[in-house]
Each structure stands twice: as C-alpha cells, then as structure tokens.
C-alpha cells in the first residue's frame, strides 16, 4: 500500500511531501481503524475539508465494494459444485498457513521484551479458557499498558 500511495500522492499529485506521508502513516497506525482508510481520510481533509475526506474515503472503498460484491454473487452460485468445494478445502488449509506465516513475522517484531510477552501470554489464556471478546481484550490490554506506563513514570 505505501509504495502505491507514494507514487500517487507524493510524486504525481504532490498532495503531501515524502516526510508528511511517513508521519501520516505512523499516525494512521496509532489511531483506531484501518491504516489505509485513515491515511486517505486525512489527505482528503487536508485538501478540501469534510467533502475532500468523504471523497477520498469513498475512492479507496469503492473498488473493494464493487469487486467483492460481484465476486461474492458469482461464488454463491458455485458453492454446490464438487470441485469448487475441493478447491476451497485446499484454500482453507492455505489460509491457516498464511495466518501462521503472519503470526510468525509479527511475533518476531513485537514480542521482544518481557512486558509484551506477558501481555501476549495473558491474552492467549483469556481467549482460550475464558472466551473473552476481541473488543474487551483490546480495551483491557490498552488500559493495563497505560497504567503500567504511568506507574513507571511516577517511580522515576
């Protein structure tokens, strides 16, 4: 996503500078929501206020909505076919492998200190044994980390 964005909004249209885009990307990462939508909304607002934000957000969402709607309606007609079912059984194994691949990369990048490892293990326990919802888990983890940070600062 980032290289594509840079080619369009920095080099071709000059909406933002290279550094602004990088800053924007890190802001997008620490605000709720999907990064690419956050970046699109911000650039739109900067250029033409509310309607600019609406326009860029619609722009980034529309291809997905059209392509997926078409694809979904076609797929629905073929799910009863035996060979399509075999193909999807293979594809589902592949999705499990893709997630394992992502988890491995993310773990290497994020689980590099005791605090992160403790949160990760506690979260796994809460998920597997107590069936905590995703929303509650994100809230809990955020609050614990905020509290831990404040305690550390007071001690200093």
């Amino acid at each position, binding site marked *: 996503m980032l290289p594509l964005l840079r080619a369009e909004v920095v080099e071709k249209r000059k909406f933002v500078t290279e550094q602004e885009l990088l800053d924007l990307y890190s802001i997008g990462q620490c*605000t709720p929501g*999907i990064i690419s939508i956050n970046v699109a909304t*911000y650039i739109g607002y900067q250029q033409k206020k509310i309607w600019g934000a609406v326009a860029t957000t619609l722009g980034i969402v529309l291809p997905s909505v059209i392509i997926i*709607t078409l694809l*979904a309606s076609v797929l629905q007609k073929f799910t009863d076919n035996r060979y399509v079912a075999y193909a999807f059984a293979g594809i589902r194994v592949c*999705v499990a492998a893709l997630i394992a691949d*992502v988890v491995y990369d993310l773990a290497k990048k994020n689980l590099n200190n005791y605090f992160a490892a403790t949160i990760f293990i506690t979260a796994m326990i809460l998920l597997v044994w107590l069936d905590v919802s*995703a929303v509650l888990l994100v809230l809990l983890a955020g609050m614990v980390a905020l509290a831990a*940070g404040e305690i550390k600062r007071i001690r200093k």
Partner: protein
Amino acid sequence: MTYLLLWAEFFKIGLFAIGGGLVTVPFLFDLTDRYDWFSKAELTNMIAVSESTPGPIGVNMATFAGFNAAGVMGGIIATFGLVLPSVIIMIMVAKMMSKYSCNVRVHNVLSGIRPAVLALILYAGLQVAKISITGSLEILVFVGLLMMMRLWKQSPIVYLCLAAIIGIVLKL
C-alpha cells in the same frame, strides 16, 4: 433490523481494529458466535478472497461479510460502518493539530494493544486450523505451504491458487 445490527457491529470493528492486514479477522470470528450471518468455514473462504483481490483486506472482508449476511445493501452498509470511525477520528486529528504525533501515553497504550492483537490473530488462526486441518493429508499440505511461504516469498494469491489445485487433485 439486520442492516442496523450490521452497521453497529462493523462500526465497533472499525473502532477497535487498530492496524492493518488481518486485524479485522478475529473480530469477524467473534461475530460467528453471536449471529448466523456466516459460518467459520465461509469466513475462512472470505479471508482467501480478500487476500487475493485488490483493496485493503479489512474493507474487502466487511463488504463480503455484509453481502453474505444481507445481500448487496448489506455489503454497502457493513463497509460504511467500518470506515465511519476512521473518518470521524481522522477529521478530528486533522482539525486539532496539523502536527499530531503519537504522544507517550498513546505510545504506551499501543505497546499493550500490539501483543494482544497478535494473540487475537493467533487465536483466529487456531480456529481456522481446527475447521480446515481435518486429517493427516491436510497437515502435510499445511506444512508444505508454510515452508514455501518462509522460503519463497510471493503474493498470497500464488499460494492460494496452488492450494486450490492441490485441493482438487487430492480431493480434500
């Protein structure tokens, strides 16, 4: 009523799914426990389709999930719900300060959320594994594909196509 529920649920996902890529997946698995909009197997198929089409995965997932639950309008409403928190929050961020940066507190909160999100994705992965890896043949395919991903970096669509062919040939 389904439309309103779809909108509310995806608004919540838009608010709490922080990051990119697969972060929306665990939230969608939560939905399978509470609504009969789609099954876990259908959701796994959706991940494959979302990974192999252009556009952010989260948006693709929302459209697909909404469509499965309530047709074309469902897809549009779910996507609208998903992006609304982003739009509101980013406009506020842009308004409040032209030079907003992640301050210390935001940074601290995120340092806790990132490992929790990792746990969520791993847990979703375990659920996918439970419904897809049903025999020893599947275990072999899983290990083979994972090794390929580690040693030969390609776009996900390459592995997904290969897996579809393997599925047909082996009659999985």
